[in-house]
């Protein structure tokens, strides 16, 4: 069976289905939740990478800044 025939047969079969609005609704819910999950994972990962990068840059900036005044070796009033 070639691809065109398969496509036509699929469309005909889908059009002849009973309860089509319910099927579309249910399968849309499934696909949307999985897609939202994948998008959520990607956004969380991106935000975490940016946070880590910012924190590292701040630490590096602190390390390269002018050194603090030397601490006294003994206590003074």
């Amino acid at each position: 069976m070639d691809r065109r025939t398969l496509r036509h047969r699929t469309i005909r079969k889908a059009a002849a289905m009973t309860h089509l609005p319910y099927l579309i609704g249910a399968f849309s819910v499934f696909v949307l939740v999985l897609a939202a999950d994948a998008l959520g994972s990607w956004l969380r990962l991106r935000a975490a990478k940016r946070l880590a990068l910012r924190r590292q840059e701040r630490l590096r900036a602190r390390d390269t800044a002018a050194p603090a005044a030397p601490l006294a070796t003994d206590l003074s009033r």
Partner: protein
Amino acid sequence: MNSLIRWFHQLGSPPTFDRFAARWSRLFYVAAVPVLLIGLWQGLFVVPAEQKQLDAFRIIYIHVPSAWMSLFVFALMAFYAAIALIWRIKICEILAMACAPMGAGFTLITLLTGSIWGKSTWGTWWDWDPRMTSELVLLFLYLGVIGLYHAIDDRRSAARAAGLLAIVGVSLLPVIRYSVDWWGGLHQRQSINVFGDNAVRDQLIAPLWWMVVATKLWFAGSLLAKARADNLAREAGKAWIAERFGTAPSARLPQ
């Protein structure tokens, strides 16, 4: 020490886990897509319509795997939370909390697709039936775990508190599983068994197994991606992050 046990111990280290999760989360997501497409294709277009419910029965291919996942993920979350509470393994805390969003997602799919299926076959969107009500309580438990984890500033205390809620919540799982047997209701009894006879014809079962595998693979990808994000956020100031991100100020984000 056995190499498998050593590998397992090493996986508890944040840098090792980050490398592992970076590689495997993508692989699981990619592997899930073709399996999911095969399952959806077979479920929608290959198997014939059922005699009584006609095409409405095709909702089984998303409803049942999602319902199984909603229970499995909660049990897994409680398992990780128990390990984290007993042995104080940080990665297990992270994994337990990463289970919750996708678990809530699967529970939401179960409730919504069940409601749509109910309308097409029973003629009602919702009934306060024991199975449906207990599944709704499961969704609230997932939301409670997520809310509690984000309500406490200290990440470790938050994970411990939310983990405790997950462990207590496990007692709901047998209630959901046996609610129909104990109290009856509108929901049908279990018609599909992994090991045993099925009330559904063999011809109609194959897409279901594809979808069961697909949801497992998708969940594994989601779990590792979310756990990796939480791990990176918690470890942001650590030296291994600097190595992973490179030391140059214009370092590129790692893949």
